[in-house]
């Protein structure tokens, strides 16, 4: 509460021309008005973009979701029928379940690996190896997802590098068409996602670790803590915020995944890698069922919010 009550404000009277208290107040208010007006003007372009390219499409999707429409001809009002379809069609529900399974690969695995790798890199921070490993682990993040998908579909094919390596080490019995097998297709696309997302999590967590006071580690060591105790008592609480960001971003990537799956399996074999993003695309562009596609898109958006908002609260803790 920095606003000083007007009566208590010191008024310096220098002569007869001195402005009265009320005109000073007016000037101050006008100045504040101009300042906030210019602030609004500065925000306006971004807000306009946000409205036209984020809010308006969401609102339009919400509108389309209440109609049966093929995208061209006249639309018919069907109320909430499309939403009923989303929750009653086993294929659509199945794609949602697949997306939840992907959270394991897109989120849990990358965050765990990144935490472990970041801790190792912190321990060898002064050596050149730290820089090299940071770069190598971050590299997948700069490769476009589509390129990563194409590359991995070669690596995972019957004669691909993965199967060649397995044969080389005498595990030829395990070889298979990883992306064409009902049991392994979803884990395989999941691992591609994990490979891509480790770099992002690593960089975020490493940045968080630099904020942790070295004196804490010193004190812990004096108290006789080992590296494991150090990690759980100091490092992990220290990077809690960064882990929260990682989990949020990767969970959204899992639930809203599209590119990697479209490139590698297109939802197959069967429907084993079908995810909501891909199903929305099929509904809209192949079945030309804009209403159900929009309803599914709105459901997906709500799902992401429902999952991510409580996660944020749990992970960020009370300090935020």
């Amino acid at each position, binding site marked *: 509460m920095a606003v000083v009550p007007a009566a208590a404000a010191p008024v310096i009277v220098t002569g007869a021309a001195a402005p009265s208290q009320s005109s000073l107040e007016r000037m101050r208010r006008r100045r504040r008005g101009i300042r906030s007006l210019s602030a609004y003007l500065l925000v306006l372009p971004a807000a306009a973009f946000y409205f036209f390219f984020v809010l308006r499409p969401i609102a339009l999707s919400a509108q389309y979701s209440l109609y049966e*429409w093929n995208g061209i001809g006249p639309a018919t009002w069907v109320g909430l029928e499309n939403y009923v379809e989303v929750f009653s069609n086993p294929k659509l529900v199945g794609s949602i379940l697949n997306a939840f399974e992907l959270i394991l690969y897109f989120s849990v695995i990358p965050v765990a690996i990144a935490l472990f790798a970041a801790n190792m890199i912190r321990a060898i921070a002064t050596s050149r190896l730290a820089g090299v490993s940071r770069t190598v682990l971050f590299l997948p993040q700069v490769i476009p997802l589509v390129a990563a998908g194409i590359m991995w579909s070669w690596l995972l094919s019957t004669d691909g590098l993965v199967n060649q390596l397995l044969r080389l080490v005498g595990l030829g019995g395990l070889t298979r*068409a990883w992306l064409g097998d009902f049991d392994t297709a979803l884990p395989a696309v999941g691992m591609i996602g994990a490979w891509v997302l480790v770099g992002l999590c690593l960089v975020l967590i490493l940045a968080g670790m630099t904020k942790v006071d070295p004196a804490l580690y010193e004190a812990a060591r004096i108290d006789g803590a080992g590296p494991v105790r150090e990690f759980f008592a100091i490092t992990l609480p220290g990077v809690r915020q960064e882990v929260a960001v990682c989990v949020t971003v990767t969970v959204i990537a899992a639930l809203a995944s599209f590119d990697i799956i479209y490139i590698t399996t297109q939802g197959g074999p069967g429907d084993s890698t079908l995810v909501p993003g891909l199903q929305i695309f099929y509904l809209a562009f192949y*079945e030309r069922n*804009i209403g159900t596609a929009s309803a599914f898109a709105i459901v997906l958006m709500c799902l992401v919010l429902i999952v991510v908002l409580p996660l944020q609260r749990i992970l960020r803790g009370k300090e935020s």
Partner: protein
Amino acid sequence: MQELSTRPLVLLGVMAFSAAALTACAPPGGTASPEATSDTDFGADGPDCGDEDVVLDAYFETGFPLPTALTEEFTKQFPNVTFDIREDQFAVITQNAPRVLQDSPPDLMRLPQMSELASDGLLLNLDPYAEAFGWTDWPPSQLEQLRVNDEGRRGDGPLYGMGLNYSMTGVFYNKELAEQIGLTEAPKTLDELDAALQDAKDAGLVPIAQFNGGATGGLAFPLQALMASYGDPAAINEWIFQQPDATIDTAENLAAAEHLQKWIDAGFFAEDINSLDYAQMMSRFIGGESLFIFNGDWESGNLDNQMPGNAGFFLMPPLEEGGSIGAMSAPLTYGVAAAAENPDCAAFFLDWTATNDEARAIAVEVGGSHPMGPADAFMPPVEEGSTTAATLDAGAALSEANGAMDFIANATGAIYAQSWTPNLQKMVAGEQTPAGMLESVQADYESQVGN
């Protein structure tokens, strides 16, 4: 904490308000389908490209050299006509078709399944051109698949497309590998084919490398061929053309699907078919890694170049020798947008591809398939023993047997990616039965046709 819980609520509130405000507006989409009809007054010489400079706006499919080769020859013969060509993959064309036809209507466009596009008034009714050019005198079966009636059913009604040629599918085989198992001539019955497949398997060869990965289930090719061996192609066409009460779930089709299941169980297909795509299938076949593939004559020209003299072709044999034959055979469909700028010139080009000798030669040599047009029209000489010669012979036999049918994947816009493909992939993995597949496809079909 307080802030965290209220912010999303406010955001949701704002969005809900905007949504409510928008939904209060008019419903999306047009009020009625536009009726597209072309001008029927073409003057004394009929529709043509005139003498002034014309740029035809064309939207073609990537990976097929035929349309571009035809446009080059056309510009050579009619220098006032040039082409502005955009190319995309077929899957992209399928996704884009309605919006492209609506927003930037091309003069010539490669079409996906076109009944919905015609029903939405996005395609030009070509009947006046068919009259003016005499397409009505051609064998009616050539254009039947391109007719859509006012209920959105194909097979009759106004003409909404034309073919650059018409293609047909069957079985390609590697002659060298066939000799290894003593197969010197095409099997005459399904039993003989079964025996050849078993011989190939016993000899350590991969009998069939069929693509079946991604959103394109290539097992639909052998399945439909088997359907023609077991049943009547006309009944399958009725289903594809969405005739009332048509069903794919019949006893004959069940027998065909069970036969396919037998092949799967016997290990006649490459082990990784569920991750094989079309390009991989072609490279394996050309590389001599499989004895058979089920594919179309559009590859004839390519195979003549890549494995000259070594690729043979036959139609799926009937159950008994001399029995009825059938095959997927469809025009390489092109259409004109309802709002195209140069419809007369586009239609003139389509007529030229079927009636000009050079164009017909290109259709055979570059496209590898039979040109459209009158039955007695010019045919270019083809090298004896070539793959193209084998496919053209098979085409003649098919037309004589009246066994042509459209592709079961063309019944609706989504039936291939959303129903045939996942079900066929499940069959490979043992997660679907032949009867379950037909039942599931029929249920999807009914819900899609209902829409």
